[in-house]
Structures are given as structure tokens and as C-alpha cells.
């Protein structure tokens, strides 16, 4: 195929390829950086559509926040620093994993505490039943 004949096809291929970059024009230096970016944005909540994470959301603000996360990564900030940066502006609500602090103690410890309390009640009831069963036996009963 001559170049002249191939040119329209090349152009068509080029047009097909462009929209993929239009979604987020971010260039990663390697696969590891891209994976890190994807993992990080998946742990952050989009404020506009609040049941979506930052990686999935197509809201304009999400684009800009992704861009911001990308630039912070490029500036050598750690995941933790980036999360703190966003939480300082948008509240801990942006973090899918809420930090452990007095205001979230109930959230973190209540399920465990309820489980332990439930187990306590269960043990108490079972012991009492066992005692009652033993007390029902008279000394004359045959074992």
C-alpha cells in the first residue's frame, strides 16, 4: 500500500486514538506510577457525586482533583500527604477510610464492642442454664 493510500487510514486511526486521551490527559512515567495513581484516587470520594470515587467520577471537579493529585504525586508527595491535603480542604469525608480519632471512636470500636457484649451475654445465659440444669438433678439421680 502506498503512503498516499494509507494516509486516510492513518488519519482515521489517529482520530480513534484521540478521545482516549481527552478523558484525562495524564502521562505516567511508568506502570507503577499509574497503578499508584489509580489506587489512590480509588480511595478518595468525589464530592460532586458522593457515591463515586475520584477514579470513576466524570464530574468536572473530579477531573481537576485528579489533576491535582497527579501534580502532588509528581512533586514527590506521599499518599498520606496527598490525603491530608484533600482532607484539609474537603473534610475527612473525602477519605473512604476514616482516620482513627476521638470523633470516630464510636465508628471504629462500636462493632467490636457490640460483638464482645453479645458474646458476654451469650456466655452468661449459657452458664446460668448449665447451672440450672445441674441444680435440677437430685443427689439420688443416677449418673
Amino acid at each position: 500500500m502506498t503512503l498516499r493510500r494509507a494516509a486516510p487510514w492513518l488519519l482515521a486511526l489517529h482520530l480513534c486514538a484521540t478521545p482516549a486521551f481527552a478523558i484525562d490527559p495524564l502521562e505516567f512515567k511508568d506502570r507503577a506510577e499509574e497503578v499508584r495513581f489509580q489506587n489512590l484516587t480509588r480511595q478518595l470520594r468525589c464530592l460532586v457525586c458522593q457515591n463515586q470515587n475520584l477514579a470513576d467520577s466524570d464530574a468536572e471537579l473530579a477531573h481537576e482533583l485528579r489533576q491535582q493529585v497527579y501534580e502532588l504525586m509528581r512533586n514527590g508527595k506521599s499518599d498520606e500527604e496527598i490525603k491530608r491535603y484533600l482532607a484539609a480542604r474537603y473534610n475527612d469525608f473525602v477519605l473512604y477510610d476514616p482516620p482513627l480519632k476521638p470523633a470516630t471512636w464510636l465508628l471504629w470500636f462500636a462493632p467490636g464492642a457490640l460483638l464482645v457484649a453479645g458474646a458476654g451475654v451469650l456466655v452468661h445465659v449459657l452458664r446460668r442454664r448449665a447451672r440450672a440444669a445441674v441444680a435440677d438433678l437430685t443427689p439420688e439421680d443416677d449418673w
Partner: protein
Amino acid sequence: MARLLPLAVFLALVGLLLFGIHWNAHHEMTEVPSPLIGKPAPEFTLPLLYEPERKLSRAELLGKPYLLNVFGSWCPTCQYEHPILSANVKPLGIALIGLDWRDDPDDAKRWLGRFGNPYDAVITDRDGRTGIDFGVYMAPESFLVDAQGVIRYKRIGMFTPELIERELKPKLAELARPARAAAP
């Protein structure tokens, strides 16, 4: 006593669920309280909409309180809020600074030309970075900043005349008090 325990647990659960219903009915679920309240407003230096060669910074606004109103010509709710800013906020005497957020300045000028300009100054945040620093996530939003540059109150969504009475006016009265006390 032990026989009443299940009933007590049941009633406690009912109480918890009723509280949940009450809470949800009285809170806007999409409103995320700003962690910036009581903290210094973020730094910014942004071009003025009508004189792009001049810039307005946070430092220049220190000394008297102002209401920073985040808007955009693309934002439909801002159109509803706009006449309320003119009619109900402007007479309160607080400096009104417009932050034109993620917007084309020409569109913003057209928009203000059509509806009128209630702002004492309009600054443009075209790439939205200052908005992000303020934790803006939906327009309109408004920040009440005191004379020391500290954010005292934030409204997410539009102001209504009722909200101005109930929330903004008491906050403004609060600001007026310590300022008078500090004056010689």
C-alpha cells in the same frame, strides 16, 4: 428485670432509628461541613474580572470582613441566588467579593451584564485552584471571612432570604461585636 431486657434493647433500637430519621430530615445529606471554619482563609492572588491586569490578594482584603461568593456563569443555581444577593445581602453592608469559579471571563462578564453586578469586586479563578483550596465543590458557595482573614461561616448552596435571617445575620452581628471591643 432480666425479662424486660429484650424490650429495653428493642426500645433503644427504635430510639436510634427515630433519631436517624430525624437527623436525615433536618440535614442536607450532600452538605459536607468545611474543615476550614475557624481557620485562616487560604492564600490567593487572582486577577480582577474587569481589570485583568490588576490582581486582588487575600492580604489586601484584610482589615474588614467580607463575604466571598463563589459563582459561575455556567451555574444555574447562581442565577436563582443572584437577585437575592442584590436585594438581601447587599443592604447588609458587608463587602461582597465574587469568585468567578472555573469560568470563561467573557462569559462571566456577559452573565453579570445581563443580571447586574452585586459585587464590590469580582476575581477570576479560571483553573479552579483557589476554589479547591477553599474546598469548594458546588457553586454557589459563600464564605464569611472576618477582618483577621479567618473563615467564620460557610454556606454550601444558594442563600435564601430565610437563611440570611437565620444564619448570615447572626454571624455578621457576632463579627461586629469583637471588632468594636478591639477598637480604642
